[in-house]
C-alpha cells in the first residue's frame, strides 16, 4: 500500500524504476510519425530497450522543451532544431557527446556535411548528432523560365533579378517569387551569403549595419518594390503549391519538405515542369542556411547508454535512407546520399550541391528572437515605413537590447571564472 502511495506521488520515477530501459524520445512535427516505423528493427536488435516516442507539435515544441527543463521532466533524448540547440546548451540541459562519438564505429564526423556538423558544436563542445538537414533554396518552374528565354536557373543575384523581372506581371497577379513576409529564413539566407557576420564581438552585438547585410536587405526589399514578390504573409499565401503549379509564382524560396508537397499536390502531368536549384549568390552560386534537426541526449537522463545506441542506430546510412523514403527529410551524411532513392533523384540534386555550401546561423540562444525582430523590421521596410539605413539601425538597436543579458552573463562569467570552475 505504501509503495502505491509513493508511486503515485512520484509518478514518473517509479515507472522508470520498474522498467529500466524504457527510453522517452521526443520528436517534433511529422518526424514522429515516420520514426516509429523505424523503431521495431531497433527494438529487435536491442530486446532490453523499449522506445516511447512522444510527438510535439512544432508550434508548441520550443515552449514544451523549456517548460520540461524548468520542471525537471526532460526526456532521455530528443530531436532538436539546430537553432534551438544553443539555447538548451546554454541551460546546460544537454549531454556533451564528443567522447561517445570518438568511440563510435557508426558515427564518422568526416562523413557529415561540415557546416551541419558544426552547428552542433557550441563553444567547443559537441551536443548533438545531425539527424536530417534542411536548407532553403529555389524551387522553380523550368517551363516558365524556358518560355521566357532562360535555359538554366539563376546563379547570381543579377541573373535572378533579370529573370524575376521577365516573369513578373503584377497586373495579372503573377509574381517572380513568393517570399512570405513573416518568415525570416529567406532574408537570413541572403544575409548569410555575405562576408560580414550577422552578429559581432562573439555574439554580443548585432551587425546589421554592416555593408554586407545592407546589400542583402536591399536586394530582398527591392524584390517587393519592383513587385516581383507579393507583400503577403504565409497566412495569406494559404496554398502556395497549387499557385506555384498555376504559374502565379515562378520561384519559391523554401525547404526540402516541399519536394514531397509538390509531388503529392501537383498533377502528374506537371511534375516535369518544376525543379530545384541552389541559391544564387551576390556574384556566384551562394551559400544557404544550415538548418535541420539533431539528436541530443539530456543531461538528466538515467539511460544515456541506451539513448546513445538509438542515436547510433538512426545515424546508419541505411536507416537514414529509409527515413528519407518515409518522409523526405534529407540525411546529413554524404554516404547516405550514395544509395537509395536519393542518388538518382534530380529534384534532390540541388540540395546535395547546396549542402556543401551552407553556413550556420549565429549560435546564441537569443538568435531565434533576433531573427524574428529582424524580419519584423524588414516587413516595415517592405511596407515603405522605413528606409534601408533606418531599418539597419533599428535591427541593431533591437538585437543589442535582446543581447543585453548575454553581455552581462558573459562578463559576469569571465569575472567569476577565476573564483570557481564552471560545471
Amino acid at each position, binding site marked *: 500500500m505504501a509503495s502505491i502511495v509513493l508511486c503515485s506521488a512520484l509518478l514518473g520515477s517509479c515507472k522508470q524504476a520498474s522498467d529500466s530501459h524504457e527510453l522517452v524520445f521526443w520528436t517534433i512535427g511529422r518526424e514522429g510519425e515516420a520514426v516509429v516505423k523505424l523503431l521495431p528493427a531497433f527494438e529487435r536488435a536491442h530486446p532490453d530497450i523499449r522506445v516511447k516516442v512522444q510527438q510535439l507539435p512544432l508550434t508548441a515544441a520550443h515552449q514544451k522543451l523549456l517548460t520540461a527543463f524548468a520542471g525537471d521532466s526532460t526526456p532521455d533524448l530528443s530531436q532538436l532544431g539546430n537553432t534551438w540547440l544553443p539555447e538548451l546548451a546554454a541551460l546546460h540541459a544537454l549531454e556533451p557527446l564528443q567522447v561517445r562519438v570518438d568511440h563510435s564505429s557508426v558515427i564518422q564526423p568526416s562523413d557529415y556535411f561540415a557546416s551541419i556538423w558544426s552547428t552542433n558544436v557550441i563553444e567547443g563542445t559537441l551536443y548533438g548528432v545531425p539527424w536530417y538537414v534542411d536548407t532553403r533554396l529555389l524551387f522553380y518552374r523550368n517551363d516558365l523560365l524556358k518560355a521566357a528565354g532562360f535555359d538554366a536557373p539563376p546563379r547570381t543575384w543579377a541573373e535572378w533579378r533579370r529573370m524575376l523581372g521577365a516573369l513578373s506581371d503584377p497586373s495579372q497577379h503573377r509574381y517572380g517569387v513568393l517570399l512570405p513576409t*513573416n518568415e525570416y529564413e529567406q532574408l537570413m539566407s541572403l544575409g548569410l551569403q555575405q562576408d560580414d557576420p550577422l552578429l559581432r564581438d562573439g555574439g554580443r552585438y548585432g551587425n546589421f549595419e554592416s555593408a554586407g547585410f545592407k546589400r542583402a536587405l536591399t536586394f530582398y526589399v527591392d524584390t517587393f518594390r519592383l513587385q516581383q514578390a507579393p507583400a503577403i504573409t504565409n497566412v495569406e499565401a494559404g496554398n502556395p503549391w497549387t499557385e506555384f503549379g498555376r504559374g502565379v509564382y515562378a520561384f519559391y524560396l523554401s525547404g526540402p519538405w516541399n519536394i514531397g508537397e509538390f509531388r503529392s499536390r501537383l498533377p502528374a502531368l506537371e511534375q516535369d515542369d518544376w525543379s530545384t536549384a541552389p541559391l544564387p549568390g551576390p556574384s556566384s552560386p551562394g551559400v544557404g542556411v544550415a538548418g535541420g534537426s539533431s539528436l541530443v541526449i539530456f543531461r538528466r537522463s538515467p539511460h544515456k547508454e541506451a539513448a546513445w545506441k538509438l542515436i547510433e542506430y538512426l545515424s546508419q546510412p541505411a536507416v537514414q535512407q529509409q527515413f528519407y523514403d518515409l518522409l523526405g527529410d534529407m540525411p546529413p551524411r554524404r554516404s547516405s546520399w550514395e544509395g537509395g532513392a536519393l542518388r538518382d533523384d534530380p529534384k534532390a540534386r540541388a540540395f546535395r550541391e547546396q549542402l556543401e555550401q551552407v553556413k550556420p546561423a549565429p549560435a546564441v540562444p537569443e538568435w531565434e528572437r533576433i531573427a524574428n525582430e529582424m524580419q519584423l523590421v524588414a*516587413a516595415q521596410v517592405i511596407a515603405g515605413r522605413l528606409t534601408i539605413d533606418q531599418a539597419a539601425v533599428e535591427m541593431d538597436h533591437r538585437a543589442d537590447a535582446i543581447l543585453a543579458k548575454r553581455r552581462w552573463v558573459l562578463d559576469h562569467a569571465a569575472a567569476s571564472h577565476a573564483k570557481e570552475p564552471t560545471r
Partner: protein
Amino acid sequence: MNPQRTAWLFLAPALVVLGVFFLLPVLAALALSLTDYDLYALANIHNLRFVALGNYWELLHRPLFWAALGHTVYFVALGVPLSMGASLGAAMLLNSPLATAKPFFRTALFAPVVTTVVATAVIWRYLFNTKYGMANYLLGLVDIHPVDWLGDPHWAMPTIIAFAVWKNFGYNMIIFLAGLQAIPPDLYEAARIDGASPWRQFRHITLPMLKPTMLMVGILTVSGYFQLFAEPYVMTEGGPLQSTVSVLYLMYDEGFKWWNLGSASAVAFLLFVIMFAVTVLMLKLSQRGDQT
C-alpha cells in the same frame, strides 16, 4: 463552537485552495516582475538580478507595448458596443412574441460561443482570404474591389473585431434574454394603451429595466475583451506588421515564447492595473447615472 468559527471551518477548504492556486501564484508573479528572470536565470540562479521597477520602466518605454495597448483599446472600444448591440438585438428578436422556432434560433445563435475559437478562426480565415474567400466574392458581386482582410494592417483588426463579436455575442444574448423576460409585461401593456411607439417603449421601459443587466454584461465584456489573445493568435499571429498584437499577446510572446518571465509578469500587472481602473470608472459612471 460558535457560529462564526463554524463558518470559517466550512470556508477553510475553499480558502486554502484559493490561496494556494490563486493568491500565491499572483504574489509569485508580482515578485517575478521585479526581477529579470529569463533563460539564463533558469540555467543558473546566479544569473538572476533584482531590477525593482526596471521591467515596468522598460515596458513604458517600449513602442510595442503602447502599440499593443492601442490595439487592445481599439478592440475594446469598438468591439464592446458592437458586441452588446448585437447581443441585445438578438435577445429582443428572440423575445419578440412574433418570433417562431425560438429554441432553434436560441441554439443556433449560441453555438459560436461553445465552439472552440481555433476551429471557428480557421473557418473565418478561409472566409476572409483575399483571393478565394467568400467575403470578397460577395463584395465582388456588387463590384467592390477585393479587400486584403487579414493582410492589410488597417483591415486586420476590424476583421478580428467582427470575428470576436460573432463569436461572443451569444453569451450576452442569453443574459439579456433572461433580463428581458424579467420585465413585467403589464408595463408594455400600459405604455401601449398610452399610445407609446415601439421606440419609446424601448427607450423608457426596456433600457431602464435592463440597466443592472447592462452594467454587469458591460463589465464582463470589457474585462473579457481586454484579454484579447486567441483571436489574433490563430487568425494573424499578431501580424501583419504587428498590427494585431494585443497586450496579452505581448505577454505570451515575452513569457512563453522568449521565456522572459520577469517582463511578462510586468505586462500582466500593467494590464491588471488598467482593467481595474476601467472597471472602477464604469462603476462610478453608472452610480452617477443613478443619482440623476
